[in-house]
């Protein structure tokens, strides 16, 4: 009788798979933001939320770009300053400064950015690969999106959330 059970279960599993593979999408939705002079973007679905800056707690023994941890509704979330991470000088927070909380699986962190630009819908075909010099396993760049007169660097969220110290 266990065989019978197994059969039924396998059948159900097969059905579920079919449903999942049903749709695909050519439009990529991104959220753009500025760090220093450049515009960057990450997929909208990887963003948990965008919040105004507030206090955080310093954590010892981490690189300077890890500012510390902050409390987001009861969760303790690391805070990373993307200016510092990208080799720029630290800047005082102003009214445009935001924390973008990004999520990839169980990994989650908040990133300090200079200001938000906009939500971007871009066709997949308009996204080119990262420049040759930047291609490699280590690159944080997913690709380069071209839209009208702008060039947007699309970042790999999983790389951003990867601990590299």
């Amino acid at each position, binding site marked *: 009788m266990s065989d019978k059970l197994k059969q039924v279960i396998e059948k159900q599993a097969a059905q579920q798979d079919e449903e999942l593979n049903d749709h695909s999408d050519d439009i990529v939705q991104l959220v753009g933001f500025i760090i220093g002079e450049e515009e960057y973007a990450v997929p909208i679905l990887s963003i948990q939320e965008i919040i105004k800056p507030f206090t955080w707690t310093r954590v010892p023994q981490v690189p300077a770009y890890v500012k510390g*941890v902050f409390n987001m509704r009861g969760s303790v979330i690391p805070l990373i300053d993307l200016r510092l991470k990208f080799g720029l000088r630290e800047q005082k927070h102003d009214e445009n400064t935001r924390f973008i909380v990004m999520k990839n699986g169980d990994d989650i962190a908040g990133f300090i950015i200079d200001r938000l630009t906009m939500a971007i819908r871009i066709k997949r075909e308009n996204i080119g690969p990262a420049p040759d010099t930047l291609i490699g396993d280590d690159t944080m760049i997913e690709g380069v999106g071209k839209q009208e007169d702008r060039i947007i660097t699309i970042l790999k969220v999983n790389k951003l959330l990867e601990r590299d110290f």
Partner: protein
Amino acid sequence: MDEFEEILQDFLVESFELVEKLDEDLVELESNPEDLELLNGIFRVAHTIKGASSFLNMDVLTHLTHHMENILNKARHGELVITPEIMDVILESIDLMKELLETIRDTSSDAGIDVSGCVARLDAIDNGGSGTEVETPAVKEPEPEPEPVKEEPKEETESSSESDDEPDYENMSDDEVEKEIAKLLAQRQAEDKAKREARIAAGEDVPAPPPSPDEAPKAEPKKESTPAPVAKTTPTPKKATASAKSAGGAKAAAPAKKQVAPEQTIRVDVKRLDHLMNLIGELVLAKNRLIKINDDMEDRYEGEEFLEELNQVVSIVSLVTTDLQIAVMKTRMLPVGKVFNKFPRMIRDLSRELNKKIDLQISGEETELDKSIVEEIGDPLVHIIRNSCDHGIEVPDVRIAAGKPEMGTISLKAYNEGNQIVIQIDDDGKGLDANMLKDRCIEKGLITEKEADTMSDKDAFALIFKPGFSTAAAVTNVSGRGVGMDVVKTNIEKLNGIIDIESEVGVGTTIKLKIPLTLAIIQALLVGVQEETYAIPLASVMETVRISIDEIYTVEGKNVMRLRDDVLSLVHIGDIFEVERIMEGGEYVYVVVLGVGAQKLGLLVDTLVGQEEIVIKSLGEYLKGIEGIAGATIRGDGGVTLIVDVVALMEMARKVKATSMISENSDSLGAKKEKNSPSDYTIMIVDDSKTDRMIMTKALSELGVSLVEAVDGQDALTKLKDGTHNFDAMLIDIEMPRMDGYTLASEIKKYNKYKNLPLIAVTSRTGKSDRMRGVESGMVEYITKPYSADYLSSVVSRNINFKF
């Protein structure tokens, strides 16, 4: 999870529990071979597993348990006396059973483990013991099973009539009985969640191919690799009833009782409990916050009526939260006996192996601990007990020569002590010899001779936890590799536990493991260093003392102090966590005396904030494993506070170069810039009125100091904190939007580094109570409007020690 999996999971959970019990009972049986009740119990357990495994097509397991059952059955009928040799084989087969169950858990099938050797040994015993029987190939036929069925049919009805709704078996045909039996088995199988599915499944299959009774029993002993599932299920139920019924004579009520008991408990997925625990954690945080707000309200609206009501609500919420927290914690509690009950077997095996006589006495096994902790303490206890057997208890000859009883005693106790649980392992063996331990360590290069000289006995006992340490001259099967006790230390410390050893040469050793009741919510001491706050688990805090800086001595580059008769090494928390020194230390500092095991360390902190119940949160994947930080917690004000990992901190303290307290002070003084010209002085003017700011600016312009303006309290606080300017004084208006002057002053005074910053109130409020409030909130001067320019500038220059 699919249905088959679910049934399998239930089977595994049940079987592991049963096997665990089997182990225990068998050891007891060995010392008590006449205990028929015990024997019956054991038989029933073996039988249940066999029945269930055959139902799930676990052929190897069924095969093994079947042969084991044969022997037990004979013993039960008095045809066999269980000798230690027979017991060895039975225990061996139980080990195999465990192995099989583990394989099933991992791979969902029981293939790949060879049981034939063990089965052969079981058969040999079976044959040897069955001398009275005429037919020699006793195993080849399922003799013991069918026979009882015919012998005692009356008892069957007796016992079964006690259960809920049993039909009348006597009036049934063979086939009907078969069906009924199969159904019973299915019920037992699915006692838990999968009840319904299993029952339907059984109902479907059984009537379909009704096997002839002769065919079925044959299939089993011949070890046919995969007989049809039904052929397997049919012979076993027979035994299921056989066991129930034959046990019936002795205590017919037992099976019936067993069926009622499970209704008192529910098996709950641990994940759900964890989730519940997390939610409670959130609630505790919210409660802390509520209490803080309540306190603030009390300060602000003293005497208002609604406060009373708020107070009541807050106390009820906090009371209920605490109760809820305890209740949920309790659901996660398991009796420590879960771990203890594997030790009788272990001691038995060890004493046979080592040729020693050891008696294990267990008490307090009903003491409860958090599930996660129960899982963690198993290994350490195994190592400690092995150690006691191998190194502690002497061989009988030596014991007799020393005037001790031949039989050595190890006692394992668990009991509650405050917020901790203590697990105590005593042996009456040869004890630890401090000098011998030191010599050994010096030999192995683990400590220097100098260290050994200054070591107390307690410190010397703690040496046994050093990795690489072993007193055994040779590595034996049991111990001597020098890793075991290190494991003990690591595991216990991971649980925030403390190990305490007492020993007397020739008398025995006592090891106490002190473990917190739960891991998720702990009591912590909050300490402040500069502007930061850290939480230290209270379990590791032995005491706190306030000392003058003069009491700190520097020995070999380390700060130390004298604490009663001991010398305590000191380390500043700021040196460990790289805290920037903005504020000079006062004349006095606080020392938090930390203790882990026998190690002590004095942690210097700037302030003691207080004791609080905190919820441990992980720092997440990105920041995990930061040395010295065990996690974080969220405080009543919504801020995050880091929790100190005391064990790691002690390790780090060794590497940190001591900074002398005195030089630190002069350093931070030097950090304050020399004032070379009037413009090196910076003063902030905080006033919401532009005119007032203008007047003040004019009044101070003669001094030539730099001025910064802020339009309200919030603005002032931001400008002060962003660190662009080092302010020497602040002129503060009282009536301001967003944040008034009093609040601003008390906010500023919360920061250590601004403790000495002169705050001067400039206001038109002239009342006495206003002035009092000004003083309370930390203002040093109180200037009432209107004022003369000269007066203002003289007050300011006096307060900033103006030199020009």
